[in-house]
């Protein structure tokens, strides 16, 4: 526990000075994906549920935030076909960034409630398939809805002013805003893991029938963990939209669901800091290997193979195991 706090302090200090040495926009991207991976780890690493549809929460809220911050609520919607009677017409001013983030997160949580509510009835591969199927439906919606811009993506999202005071178009202001969001998200996850609630999750992961026999309503715990994970993934997606000022189909594509699994596994699932390391590896490779041209996929693949062979428990998991000896 004490060691965790120490690492956190060092990490925070490093992140505060990092933008002086590393390109800040890249760091912001890293933080968004690190939060996404941490949120995912809450589910995979601590509850033992492998969701293959987290891109839906990440990308879905990215679109919601992007649209609300750019255009406000301007829903002018009539359902197609026989659902014609469903129609809605609202128009408000564009939202401020903090409200946009909250709205994105709330939508992700609601979506998580729906998806989770259906998916947790099954376990293992069936759970993964249900989440994947439902996430593909979200992808389909993102492709079809006019406001998402389809293939072109939702472009030109303004960063705006935080609380009407801080000008987020300034790179450093934006960086510290993202850092603050990351810290809040990370703290929520850390507290959740180390609370009695987290203990129950771990019990479910280790032996579900035993947790049931002890009198825990396992489904409820799973659902809460799922919703929490979805909401924080959504927060990460919304923040990413503000950083890059765009949301695109990449964010909701199943590749993204795969990428977050990869980040968590590479870093070490079920470790507190693993997903951060994993996100750093994956995002760093995407960014810095990009200059290598057509070799990028080969090199990335080779590094993944090496990681899997050398670090069975993930990078952080392996380091943690060293200390335990």
């Amino acid at each position, binding site marked *: 526990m004490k060691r965790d706090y120490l690492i956190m302090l060092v990490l925070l200090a490093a992140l505060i000075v990092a933008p*002086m*040495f590393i390109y800040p*926009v890249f760091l912001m991207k890293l933080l968004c994906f690190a939060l996404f991976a941490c949120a995912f780890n809450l589910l995979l690493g601590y509850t033992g549920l492998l969701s293959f549809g987290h891109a839906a929460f990440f990308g879905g809220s990215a679109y919601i935030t992007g649209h609300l911050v750019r255009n406000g609520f301007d829903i002018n919607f009539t359902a197609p076909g026989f659902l014609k009677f469903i129609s809605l017409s609202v128009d408000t001013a564009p939202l401020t960034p903090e409200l946009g983030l909250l709205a994105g997160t709330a939508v992700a949580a609601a979506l998580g409630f729906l998806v989770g509510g259906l998916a947790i009835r099954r376990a293992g591969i069936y759970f993964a398939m249900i989440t994947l199927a439902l996430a593909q439906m979200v992808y389909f919606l993102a492709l079809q809805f006019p406001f998402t811009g389809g293939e*072109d*993506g939702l*472009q030109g999202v303004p960063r705006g002013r935080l609380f009407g005071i801080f000008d987020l178009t300034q790179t450093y202001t934006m960086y510290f805003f993202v850092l603050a969001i990351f810290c809040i998200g990370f703290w929520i996850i850390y507290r959740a893991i180390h609370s009695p609630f987290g203990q129950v999750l771990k019990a479910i992961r280790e032996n579900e029938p035993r947790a049931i026999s002890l009198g825990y309503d396992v489904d409820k715990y799973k659902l809460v963990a799922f919703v929490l994970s979805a909401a924080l993934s959504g927060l990460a997606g919304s923040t990413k939209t503000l950083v890059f000022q*765009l949301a695109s189909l990449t964010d909701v594509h199943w590749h993204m669901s795969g990428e977050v699994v990869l980040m968590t596994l590479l870093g070490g699932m079920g470790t507190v800091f693993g997903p951060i390391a994993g996100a750093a590896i994956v995002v760093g490779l995407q960014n810095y*290997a990009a*200059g290598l041209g057509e070799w*990028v996929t080969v090199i990335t693949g080779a590094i993944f193979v090496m990681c899997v062979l050398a670090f069975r428990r993930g990078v952080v998991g392996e380091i943690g195991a060293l200390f335990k000896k």
Partner: protein
Amino acid sequence: MKLNPNHRAVLIGAALTLALAACGKKDEAPKTAEPAATPSSTATTPPPGAPSTAAAPSAGSGKISDGAVKIGVLTDLSGLYSDLAGSGAVLATQMAIETFQEQAKPDFKIEMVSSDHQNKGDIAANKARQWFDTEAVDVITELVTTSTALAVMKVAKEKNKITLVSGAASTAITNEECTDTNVHWTYDTYSLANGTGKAVVKQGGDTWYFLTADYKFGQSLEADTTAVVKANGGKVLGSVRHPFPGTDFSSFLLQAQASGAKVIGLANAGTDTTNSIKQAAEFGITPKQTLAGLLMFISDVHALGLKATQGMYLTTGYYWDRDDDTRAWSKRFFDKHKRMPTMVQAGQYSAVMHYLNAVKAAGTDDTAAVMKTMKATPISDFFAKNGKVREDGRMVHDMYLVQVKKPDESKAAWDYYHIRQTIPGEQAFQPLAQSKCPLVKK
């Protein structure tokens, strides 16, 4: 040298160590503050603040920022579009720079960096920002796929830098999303749909049936072409929408076959197009009914082979075997790349060349001045004989309706097209009067 992101990481580390070791030494400080301005082994850019040596002499110059013009090629090097753009586009850029240096003898240095955007908008936007902020890149080019092009255009507008789009297709680039720092060079969906639609009807293909990818891009391609076909006296018998991305097109193709239309318009792109062409050949649809590709490149024809694609109509902005100029340039390209250039790659060369000429003519790489010169100067090279850049950023030039040759008509490798018709620029592209670009004064 395109390795400098990696070198940069090393450089940052080295600079950091240096700065820590020699805290008192003031001359180390700028290195940490601006690590990428002296990139890796190329190191031709003087550090900011140092007097620029290269841009000193002649013609009122000395206005080249950082002493060099730096071109960033941001493209798909590893994915779906790497054949039609990719390393060929990087090569085309290099060729343009070399040729320009030989012929125009500029008094400024020219550098190039390239990177893979992996068709992801966020990676593209991140890279573009980084290039503009820390590596003094003046112009970003190529940008295949619309989502990356739009993302980079926004960043460039914000930083007041230029983008030259060659590979992306959407008309949104010069309509709703247009910026005054962008030129859309090679083609767009309107010109392809319009060119193919109009010309095919005139060639006698007056009944159409559409096979449409069921998303915004496919639908707009279908709508654009339908309008053109109808305006020219053709009839649209119907259309069928297939899911995107699709793999099995059999039921859709059979509907198209049953419609009895002379022409089947393929309002889709990429692997959807190639798969539907292959399957159309397997069902025996193709010799009897003609396919019209609304977004096809010579690289697709090369991949599919003439047997599957023969007789197909498509519109292209460039074909290597058109005249002596195109043959000469394409041969140079082929010698290095071992593939004939696609229109995107040829357009990339043309765009970079026009940009460099504009910088030389304007005597500065200042964005507004270069954009003004680029728009004021007509384009006449192997790619475009009478091209001009419009105020919405559209480069208007002649397009060509081609028909894919039968296997026995093709005499050599890459001998694929009959040029059936030259479509003059003002007919090929969307008229300025219809543009939704706010920059266009009406």
